């Protein structure tokens, strides 16, 4: 099987090359600009599209489509960034395919698994088109140890001028979010049981005492905007696997729980004893957060 890889970042490209090696016998990478040997280690061939001045990555979609049409790889792996989703989608429309996004598992036969219905189910599917397009994130594919040594030929291709270009008039870096929830060993999650933004301070105190970070459910980040979107745990946000997940006022809906059900231990406090969280917790306390949390923090110190 011939597999192509495309990614915004070199690190993702290298990882996809290494993963592709496990699935197919030939790995080819599409890169913008002269290829940096370091960056695309692991590809048997590199297709290099010359950098165009002032072009956005999106402006290379036509060139990518013309290459795919010409070379017909059986599988195209794309890193699942927002920009990647746009490029892959436009490319799919050009070649009459679909894109299987946010793939959790990918087999040699091209079968994919992804989460559907807000995490309530896992769907196995397979592309029915000549070229399958799958978006695969970090850590999904095992990386072959030989990947880092193989190096191949480079072919420069002609740039295909897009009919329509996006006009970028400004660009700003987002402020860095200092929490690193993905690597935190202990995570405190706050949900709807918190009455106001100020009360997140209690969760922070608990996190400090147990040596963890604070995340939240979607309504806290998106509805209330009490915490940055980067802290939101669940189906379209962070997927975590901490040693301990401490749920405060989290009801336990599947959309949130898929983001933490790989935790080793789940501890929950919620005043509703029928909240689904208690069926998914190792230890639970049915009580008013505001009554028990101060005492709990004091005693855990």
């Amino acid at each position: 099987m011939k597999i192509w890889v495309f990614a915004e970042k070199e690190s993702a490209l290298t990882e996809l090359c290494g993963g592709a090696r496990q699935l197919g016998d030939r790995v080819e990478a599409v890169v913008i600009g002269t290829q940096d040997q370091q960056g695309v280690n692991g590809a048997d061939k590199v297709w290099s599209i010359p950098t165009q001045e002032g072009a956005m990555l999106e402006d290379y979609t036509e060139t990518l489509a013309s290459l795919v049409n010409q070379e017909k790889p059986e599988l195209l792996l794309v890193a699942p960034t927002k920009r990647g989703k746009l490029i892959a989608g436009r490319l799919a429309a050009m070649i009459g395919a679909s894109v299987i996004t946010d793939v959790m598992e990918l087999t040699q036969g091209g079968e994919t698994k992804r989460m559907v219905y807000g995490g309530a189910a896992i769907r196995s599917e397979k592309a029915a088109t000549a070229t399958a397009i799958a978006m695969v994130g970090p850590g999904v594919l095992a990386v072959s140890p030989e990947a880092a040594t193989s190096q191949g030929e480079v072919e420069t291709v002609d740039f295909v001028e897009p009919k329509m270009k996006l006009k970028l008039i400004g660009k700003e870096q987002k402020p860095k979010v200092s929490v690193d929830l993905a690597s935190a060993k202990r995570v405190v999650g706050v949900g709807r049981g918190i009455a106001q933004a100020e009360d997140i301070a209690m969760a922070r105190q608990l996190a400090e005492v147990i040596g963890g970070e604070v995340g939240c459910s979607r309504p806290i980040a998106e509805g209330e905007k009490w915490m940055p979107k980067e802290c939101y745990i669940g189906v379209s946000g962070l997927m975590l696997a901490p040693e301990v997940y401490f749920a405060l006022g989290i009801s336990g809906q599947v959309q949130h729980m898929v983001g933490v059900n790989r935790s080793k231990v789940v501890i929950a406090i919620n005043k509703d004893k029928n909240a689904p969280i208690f069926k998914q917790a190792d230890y639970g306390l049915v009580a008013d957060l505001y009554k028990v949390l101060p005492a709990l923090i004091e005693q855990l110190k």
Partner: protein
Amino acid sequence: MNIITCFKVVPEEDIIITSNGDLSFERAKMTISNYDLNSIEAGTQLIEANSGTLMGLSVGGLKIDDSKLKKNVLSRGPESLYIVADDNLDNMDTHQTSLALKAAIEKIGAYDLVLCGEGSADLYAQQVGVQLGQLLNVPTINSISKITEVDGKVIVERTLEAEVETIELTLPAVVSVTSDINLPRIASMKQILAAGKKPSTVWTANDVNLAKPANSIEVLETKAPKQVDRKQEIIEGDSEEAIKQFIAKISGELK
């Protein structure tokens, strides 16, 4: 500005998982996909701030032609609604959905802006908006967290993983908005009553000259993930004793 806002009709969250891990939708009512409430609201706000018309559009099986659903959409701002309801259009993949929306939009006629949500609440592929734009052969962009109309052009703010871009779009264009672009309104009684009087058009696939496109994805299986076994040691109450017992249980895990 003529705006078409696309929405998907999806099963509500009460999906039942049967003993063998299959999903049952028998009891699940159909509703507007959560993420599309944001694109409907974005359209309504644009019309309120400037002027123009807002139309709702959905494609799917016959069950999407539901009076309560139609009223729900129309109470949120659109002044008319188009639905392509046909059992040939049930359970489509993103490519098929985009083709069906394209056929409907071409039947509707002139438009300046098509709005889509970030993804669908059921399958969340985040693909239909971008594929649709390409099929319509107009500029298309995703992850848009702000839209402003200036002199017949549209300026959008695009929130990516690490950066925020400002992009000028020439119209017509297809824009997919983020789920935090706005807080969708809750319709008032007056708006709900008025919605009943707004026009909606229901078409079949034939009416929009659409032959069902071939599947581009083959679905092999949809199963509930295995539940993780948890100890479920639950203590009730906020007494000192209850807190003490709770701490006794969790302190071992927090060492």
